């Protein structure tokens, strides 16, 4: 009987266990989530909802993920499933997603998995290496962790998803980009020309260069273009040009700066001395992009090596350049004249490692994710005022003429937003490197001050030094200790204006060589301008003006704390600004008398466009600008900060995850009237530092929480024990009395 009951119990247990397993499996597919986080990190933003609910063509997201990955990769898959489910709930009927189970290459895989692997590879999703343990050995395993977004005929891919951070932002912006790309492609007035220049003479020398594939390259290239063209609505025309057979193309080679090669007599005269050219040009309207398809390396001891672009890379390069040519992203105008920071880095290959301090490559890379940068020059370009919402002026050093100030002023009057990154001093390195001689700091007078002063904001000719600043440990071989860089203030969250939605999750920043920004309250109030201080230095900051010396060894905080105060570092002003030129006579534009001046400095401009514009300029300059003056404009935004260091690679990281990078990109979004995107970008900011507290407070907090709480519990226990003993004694006494 007992055995029967026991058997029944175990059967019951197994049935219950089976039901529980079923409930859990059902729970995986039918899940409900409650996001308790303040910024709703795990729920999709309004902008994502809007993007997927307004799709006009089918959009499919195909996720290729290897199953059963070890932690932390298994959480990525779950996060992706949940995220795409959220998109799906909020999307219209055009949205679809599918997960493909793809095993890594080395494993014995099923038929389906093999097919999925092929699909993934066709989309350009290849396995990445992760660490895993198999058969008691730590191995590097290959795993697929990528996705493609297919919208219409166009494909956008995220080949590696190694973290969940910023995933929603990446997906939403990719979908937005695809949407824009389709409409831009369908509205193209003419096809994009892809011209392959390849001299047939090169085919003879190709084996000597180690590129045996060269003779087949035009055919291969054409096939890739055909394949790509199908996805780009047939908007590409392929043209193959052989400069060897047609000398007419020689001019084109110069015009497009196509790589040319020369060789002497080879193989004992079997191949005669000659020359040839190879390169690709993409052309749409007046815009051209040159793509070098043959790379030349000089390797010590080995000699010159040639590398021809692989077929797999061609499609990617063509796609990326199509986006640039047809301007699928919103334009951001960048002032390239007046010695502003150079947005284009000089050369990607620098054998010496290069000095990357002044480059803006990280900023440019982040910017290109959502915007197209249009370099404009006030000296040459008269049409600066159209086709963009935001103008960036970063670190100008040359003086602006009244006419140029007038152009900026009128841009603001037309409702264009402007970001001013103003350097107060020009750092000039010493000509003779004497020991201990530092750079000199010469005040910069660009003339922008009078414009900004008129709007109610002023960048002071001084540097903010702060006790809350970047500190560096000095290695023992250099004396040890701590080097304090007072000119690199660390902005704590207390001093960041978190009332603004796009600043709410920025909890700390670092700035370098910043000048304080002052507001003229009277003007601001009079013009009814909204002025928001974005962040300030700490209470313990002071100014350095006059004779500037930023040698950290020589800077000491003032002995008297009375000279220290909080100083605003960046502002955003918003409103209808009155024109600086209201009531003044319109400034005259300088007519160029000597065409040779200055033109040599701008090498990036297309030579054709330049000569055309030069021809027209003489006439245009004489007739334009009459009667178009706006004395009080539309509502516009002005961002102002007293340093251009904020956008340099020293401060902005490559991935755009640091608070500084997020801040800069958010400001650009705000100036492009995309506050929602800025909020979405910054909602996952995990950097959340503590407020400043004294050493004593820290010790007290630690003591109370580590030792204080257990002591309180023990005291409570003792109290309970004493009470209980008393009660016991009391009862004992009662009974003793009764016994007596």
């Amino acid at each position, binding site marked *: 009987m007992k055995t029967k*009951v026991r058997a029944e*119990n*175990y059967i019951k247990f197994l049935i*219950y*266990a089976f039901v*529980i397993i079923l*409930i*859990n499996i059902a*729970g*995986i597919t*039918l*899940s*409900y*989530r*409650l*996001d*308790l*986080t*303040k*910024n709703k*990190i*795990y729920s999709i933003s309004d902008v994502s909802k809007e993007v997927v609910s307004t799709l006009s063509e089918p959009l499919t997201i195909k996720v290729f993920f290897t*199953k*059963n*990955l*070890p*932690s932390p990769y*298994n*959480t990525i898959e779950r996060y992706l499933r949940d995220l795409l489910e959220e998109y799906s709930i909020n999307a219209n009927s055009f949205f679809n997603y599918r997960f493909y189970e793809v095993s890594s290459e080395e*494993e014995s895989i099923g038929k389906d998995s093999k097919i999925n692997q092929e699909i993934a590879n066709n989309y350009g999703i290849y396995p990445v290496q992760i*660490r*895993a*343990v*198999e058969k008691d050995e*730590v191995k590097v*395993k290959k795993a697929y962790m990528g996705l493609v977004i297919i919208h219409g005929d166009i494909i956008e891919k995220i080949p590696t998803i190694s973290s969940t951070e910023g995933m929603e932002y990446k997906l939403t912006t990719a979908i937005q980009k695809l949407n824009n790309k389709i409409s831009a492609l369908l509205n193209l007035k003419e096809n994009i020309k892809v011209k392959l220049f390849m001299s047939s003479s090169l085919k003879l020398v190709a084996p000597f260069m180690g590129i045996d594939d060269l003779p087949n390259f035009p055919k291969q290239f054409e096939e890739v273009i055909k394949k790509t063209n199908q996805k780009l609505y047939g908007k590409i025309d392929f043209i193959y040009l052989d400069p060897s057979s047609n000398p007419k193309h020689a001019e084109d080679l110069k015009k497009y700066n196509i790589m040319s090669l020369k060789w002497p007599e080879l193989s004992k005269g079997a191949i005669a001395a000659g020359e040839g050219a190879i390169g690709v040009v993409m052309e749409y309207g007046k815009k051209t992009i040159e793509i070098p398809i043959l790379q030349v390396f000089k390797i010590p001891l080995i000699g010159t090596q040639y590398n021809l672009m692989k077929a797999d890379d061609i499609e990617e390069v063509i796609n990326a350049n199509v986006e640039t040519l047809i301007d699928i992203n919103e334009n951001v105008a960048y002032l390239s004249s007046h010695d502003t920071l150079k947005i284009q880095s000089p050369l990607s290959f620098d054998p010496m490692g290069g000095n990357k301090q002044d480059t803006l490559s990280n900023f440019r890379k982040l910017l290109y994710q959502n915007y197209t940068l249009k370099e404009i020059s006030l000296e040459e370009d008269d049409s600066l005022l159209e086709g963009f919402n935001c103008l960036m002026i970063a670190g100008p050093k040359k003086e602006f003429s009244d006419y140029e100030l007038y152009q900026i002023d009128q841009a603001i009057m037309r409702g264009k937003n402007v970001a001013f990154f103003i350097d107060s001093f020009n750092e000039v390195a010493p000509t003779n490197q004497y020991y201990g001689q530092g750079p000199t700091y010469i005040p910069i007078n660009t003339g922008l001050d009078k414009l900004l002063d008129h709007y109610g904001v002023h960048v002071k000719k001084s540097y903010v030094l702060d006790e809350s600043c970047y500190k560096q440990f000095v290695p023992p071989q250099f004396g040890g200790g701590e080097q304090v860089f007072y000119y690199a203030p660390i902005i704590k*969250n207390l001093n960041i204006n*978190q009332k603004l939605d796009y600043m709410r999750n920025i*909890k700390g920043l670092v700035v370098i060589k910043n000048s304080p920004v002052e507001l003229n309250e009277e003007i601001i109030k009079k013009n009814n301008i909204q002025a928001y201080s974005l962040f300030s230095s700490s209470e313990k900051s002071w100014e350095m003006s006059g004779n500037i010396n930023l040698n950290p060894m020589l800077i000491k905080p003032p002995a008297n704390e009375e000279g220290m105060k909080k100083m605003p570092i960046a502002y955003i002003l918003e409103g209808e600004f009155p024109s600086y030129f209201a009531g003044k006579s319109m400034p005259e534009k300088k007519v160029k008398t000597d065409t040779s001046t200055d033109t040599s400095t701008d090498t990036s401009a297309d030579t054709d466009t330049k000569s055309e514009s030069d021809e027209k300029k003489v006439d245009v300059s004489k007739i334009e600008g009459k009667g178009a003056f706006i004395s009080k404009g539309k509502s516009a935004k002005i961002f102002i900060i007293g340093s251009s260091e904020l956008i340099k690679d020293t401060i902005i990281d490559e991935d755009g995850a640091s608070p500084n990078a997020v801040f800069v990109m958010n400001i650009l979004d705000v100036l492009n009237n995309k506050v929602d995107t800025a909020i979405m970008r910054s909602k996952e900011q995990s*950097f*959340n*530092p*503590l*407020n400043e*507290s004294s050493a004593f407070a*820290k010790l007290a*907090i*630690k003591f*109370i*929480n*580590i030792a204080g*709480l*257990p*002591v*309180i*519990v023990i005291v*409570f*226990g003792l109290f*309970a024990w004493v009470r*209980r003993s008393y009660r016991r004694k009391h009862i004992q006494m009662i009974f003793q009395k009764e016994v007596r």
Partner: protein
Amino acid sequence: MNQVFHIFKKEFKDYFISPVAYIVISIFLLVTGWFFFTPFFLYNQASLRDFFNLLPITFSFIIPAITMRLFSEEVNVGSYEILLTMPVTFRDVILGKFFASVVFVISMLVPTLAYPITVAFLGQLDLGPVIGGYIGAILLGASFCAFGLFASSLTRNQIIAFIIGLVICFSLAIVDKMLVFFSSTIVGVIGYLGAGFHFQNISKGLIDSRDVIYFFSIIFIGLYAAHIAMQEKI
């Protein structure tokens, strides 16, 4: 249900009659406080993530110590027979003891509310993950209590009950971190079985029905296993 309440009340009182409760709570607070606050200012982040990350491991040592005596002691001293003569079912006994241990775990967590209060004074604390963390901690504690109870029902020796409970709870706490040692074919299932994995999800501030279902499932399995084990002893 009345019987469940009576047993719960008796067991919960028993915890606080002996000095064991105060000692266990003090040790728990000392360990979590030490590990959380020692590097706290060094990490300089207004978050309780490190405290919650620590909980699965801490609980896997503390909770078996709380639950080890629940059945073992009764069987050892013979009071279990007396209990069975009373008008109570096995279910009442198990639920009563289970709720008592869960409420004890909650009372153990109450003093740790000082941590979020402290952090909120020091920075901008997001309350979502804190609320999620405490809900997760209660669910995790309840799961471990269920298995601790099961371990206690297996033997009359409290030390053995503690060790069995520790092994089960510790395995549940760390299994998701040891996935690299498992074959890729079972990694998914093993990962899902880990209580630490589900707890981490909730403690991020995301209450997910899958995690809640998981915790209730293992609570049920633990309690039902204890039920069978107790029946075996008749």
